[in-house]
């Protein structure tokens, strides 16, 4: 089997640049440390060989970048997509957000990324992170070299990976995987079991940490409005400062409704939150409810699918059956 590594990706991208299939590559650029790679556009084989990297921290979902990048030229842009990215890719195509003809998509397999926050919580001063099979070697400033099992350092979204299968690509490198059942609704179920007051307290505790930096929204491939209402001074709801601690919750609840049926559960929102707010749990609750009220639906599984939330049928569940109100804040 072909091994998928930095050299293999550079080789394939270089061939496609040289034979004229595409004229640029969306990839990752090395940073100061092993973990601070930045999305970048590469225009030549030389640029690729100099700065292109591929590894445990190349988690950023590139689908959303295609909206702007495809508008920048007539040629095709090569993009590398992990299985989870391909769902966002399809969803954006369903919403006609970029020109498919201007993209050459290469599916690449994924064993899960590494979570730098988890690594930093066990090591003081991270100098390098190297992984070798199931083991990760962390070189630190003060704790020597720490060895840890890879499975303990995966970000939550990879622990609960929904699929190793690519649902869209022009070509696939390596082997495709399967749709998985990795318990991604377990935590949602825990929250459902709480009493309304416990649940209110849980979310208030989480959301009160929000600093409204908007990273979650700006990284989200389902949030692609040209002008978000929350940024528009004329909208009347522009909300640079929350009037009270509940207003930030409203922002998140409204956003969760807005992406309901379109969120593919890529996990970017929770990855980027500087306050470590588990935003994916809100979205997963919507996905879980959609599955149980209208039948299994996975956004982005196919291009052009209609989410149950935008269809109406007479058998649709009544609000009173869907939710039960209770507790002090009902």
């Amino acid at each position, binding site marked *: 089997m072909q091994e998928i590594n930095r050299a293999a990706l550079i080789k394939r991208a270089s061939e496609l640049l040289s034979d004229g299939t595409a004229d640029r590559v969306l990839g990752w650029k090395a*940073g100061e440390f092993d973990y601070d790679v930045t999305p970048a556009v590469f225009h030549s084989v030389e640029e690729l060989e100099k700065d292109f990297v591929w590894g445990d921290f190349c988690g950023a979902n590139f689908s959303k970048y295609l909206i702007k990048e495809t508008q920048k030229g007539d040629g095709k842009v090569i993009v590398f997509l992990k299985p989870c990215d391909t769902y966002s890719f399809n969803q954006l195509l369903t919403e006609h957000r970029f020109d498919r003809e201007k993209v050459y998509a290469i599916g690449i397999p994924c064993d899960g990324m590494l979570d730098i926050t988890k690594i*930093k919580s066990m090591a003081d001063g991270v100098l390098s992170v190297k992984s070798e099979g199931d083991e990760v070697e962390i070189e630190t*400033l003060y704790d020597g070299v720490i060895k840890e099992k890879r499975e303990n350092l995966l970000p939550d979204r990879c622990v609960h990976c929904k699929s190793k299968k690519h649902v869209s690509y022009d070509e696939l490198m390596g082997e495709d995987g399967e749709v998985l059942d990795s318990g991604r609704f377990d935590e949602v179920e825990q929250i459902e079991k709480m009493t309304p007051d416990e649940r209110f307290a849980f979310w208030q505790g989480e959301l009160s*940490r929000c600093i409204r930096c908007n990273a979650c929204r700006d990284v989200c491939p389902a949030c692609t409005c040209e002008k978000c209402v929350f*940024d528009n001074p004329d909208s009347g709801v522009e909300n*640079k400062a929350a009037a009270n601690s509940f207003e930030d919750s409203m922002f998140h609840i409204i956003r969760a409704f807005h992406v309901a049926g379109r969120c593919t559960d890529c996990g970017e929102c929770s990855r980027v939150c*500087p306050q470590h707010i588990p935003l994916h749990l809100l979205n997963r609750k919507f996905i879980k409810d959609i599955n149980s009220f209208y039948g299994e639906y996975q956004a982005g599984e196919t291009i052009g699918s209609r989410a149950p939330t935008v269809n109406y049928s007479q058998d649709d569940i009544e609000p009173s059956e869907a939710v039960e109100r209770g507790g002090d804040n009902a």
Partner: protein
Amino acid sequence: MRKISIDKLNSLFSAIAENETLYLPVDTKAGAKFEKWHDGAVLSDALNTVRSAKDFFFPQTENLMDFKVDGKNIEIIDTREECEDFVIFGVRACDVKSFEILDRVFLAEPVDSYYKNRREHGVIMSLACTKPHETCFCGTFGIDASSPEGDIVCHMTGDALCMDAKTEKGKALLSRLDSLTEETDGKAVEEQKKVTKERLAKLPLASLSADSFGAGKTEKFFGAPEWKELSQACLGCGTCTFVCPTCQCYDIKDFNTGHGVKRFRCWDSCMYSDFTKMSAGQPRLTQLERFRQRFMHKLVYYPTNNGGLFSCVGCGRCLSKCPIQMNIVKVMKKLGGKEND
């Protein structure tokens, strides 16, 4: 210099809190955070807090005044509360330096009286770093993490906390705590400084230089072609500006409560598309221009207006929090020329 044994920290904190509200870094599930001290609160071991200490003097939102409208009459209500004395324990050298950078903005004429009020009532007990992280580069801006500035400078040396008062405010507070503390010669502190300095010199970013930036370099960097590549992946989210101890931009808005108007101020970010939007639009039309503004401000504009002082303190927060891992170090290395190759 005074000292107190580590196992008596709680009684020290409780003695301070008797007269003044005391804040200190404690661990939360989202990292260390300044919180109000309560009996038994445990000081965090973390190197620094996730949010910076600027919040104490320049809070994310604040009510400036209220208006009550009654027919044709508008009543202006001063909502300001006179601040009481408070103490912040555990501020690191980088964050202490950020106060000087903010002071030059908010205390310059016309003085921001809201900021001044809080600044005058705050006593800073700084804490020297002993284990700087790979993302720290305070040294680039001449900040010595092993001996911070502050009203009372503290060092945690093995089994004791050593405290040295540097200002009138600091002396007043420390002398109040005399019965709890004992005199020390400061040898342990000197020893610790030496070890920390060796560690600082070995940090991966220890050789990062700001020499090619500074006052008067606007023309040299403004039109640099590198901004395009540096800014291309930026999401414009503003996280870097919100976690930064020296970012100081704000917006003032009116909020209609239905019964009147609340005029508030809140943090704003040069990274946002609606920043300083006027009738003619936002002066910086593209993300490249907004991105460039943030770094030019830190490295060129601020020094130009403030006798060469940079407005980055090298705390490294933007290094660890940017969703796409773009930050001031990468900007300095890309644009900084030979010194940073």
